[in-house]
């Protein structure tokens, strides 16, 4: 069995370097997100850093460890659009949470 035929039958293999790179990056990013807490950044800076590192880590894991980068678009899109819907749900619930807090405080302290 020649090399290309074997490759086709056993699926894709990628160079080991790419896995080690992603692995290293994940360590570095986790360390950075830990530093965000260590230095006690507050407010918008904390939030943007936490979410930036989180999304970067999630993206790297999905794209390379879970091979989504090499998958066909039919599969990638089936997975990513529902996740986009979840992001919309999160946005809705942030607004809802703020409204609930407002109405609680309003009726606790101001009264009906």
């Amino acid at each position, binding site marked *: 069995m020649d090399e290309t035929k074997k490759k086709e039958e056993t*699926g894709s*293999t990628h160079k080991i370097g790419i*896995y080690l790179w992603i*692995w290293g990056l994940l360590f570095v990013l986790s360390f950075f997100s*830990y530093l965000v807490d260590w230095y006690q950044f507050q407010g918008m800076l904390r939030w943007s850093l936490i979410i930036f590192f989180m999304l970067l880590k999630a993206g790297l894991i999905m794209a390379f460890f879970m091979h989504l980068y*090499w998958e066909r678009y039919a599969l990638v899109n089936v997975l990513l659009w529902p996740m986009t819907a*979840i992001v919309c749900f999160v946005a809705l619930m942030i607004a809802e949470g703020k409204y609930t807090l407002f109405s609680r405080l309003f009726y606790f302290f101001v009264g009906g």
Partner: protein
Amino acid sequence: MSDPKIEGFELEKGFKGMAKDTGSDQTMFKGVHWGKAMMWIFLLSDTFVFSCFLISYMKGRASTPVEWPNPSEVFALEAFGVPVPLLLIALMTFVLITSSGTMALAVKYGYERNRKMCGYLILATALGGLTFVGMQAYEWTKLIHEGVRPWENPFGAAQFGSFFFMITGFHGCHVSIGVIFLFIYCYKVFAGHYDNGKRGWFTKMKGDYVEVEILGLYWHFVDLVWVFIFAFFYLW
């Protein structure tokens, strides 16, 4: 896998390829093993479950007028007499990422039909997962001794405990199930079931190293969920 040929037709890439795949009146995920597609669909549904937990936690925390416990104090651990914030959680994160890396390499060596490397890497992954579960058990024990309960805790808002035990518990359950399957697959790899095509227990499917990749998808997903829990539960 990247651009497979099916029945002699070269498949198109990108969105055009997607439109043709979806509208072909045939199998939709062309070139993707059915087990892998099913695992992805399962993981998508699991994503919804975890999202519901995390979103309800976010809403619960954002809408309470009571002070929320400060995670970097609640989860601090004493090291050499000095309290270090989130020490245990940081260690757990590194252990889980390490095990995710070994799993990715196991999948690679599996496809290269390197039976021994694949088996040892799966074993390393399983041991990493076991360490993680152990550390989580320690964390739970510590918090329970400090008086954290699903209905009350000494640090602040009473909802904290229920969200904490629910979310980390559900994640820990996923890790534990993953560890069990990692040990089973480790045995199957070493026994050569994926080299000689021995059939599995629930299926008539012939053993193939694609199963290692499917297990890998599950394991990476567990790591992925931890990334979100770490960001929203421990760092917020």
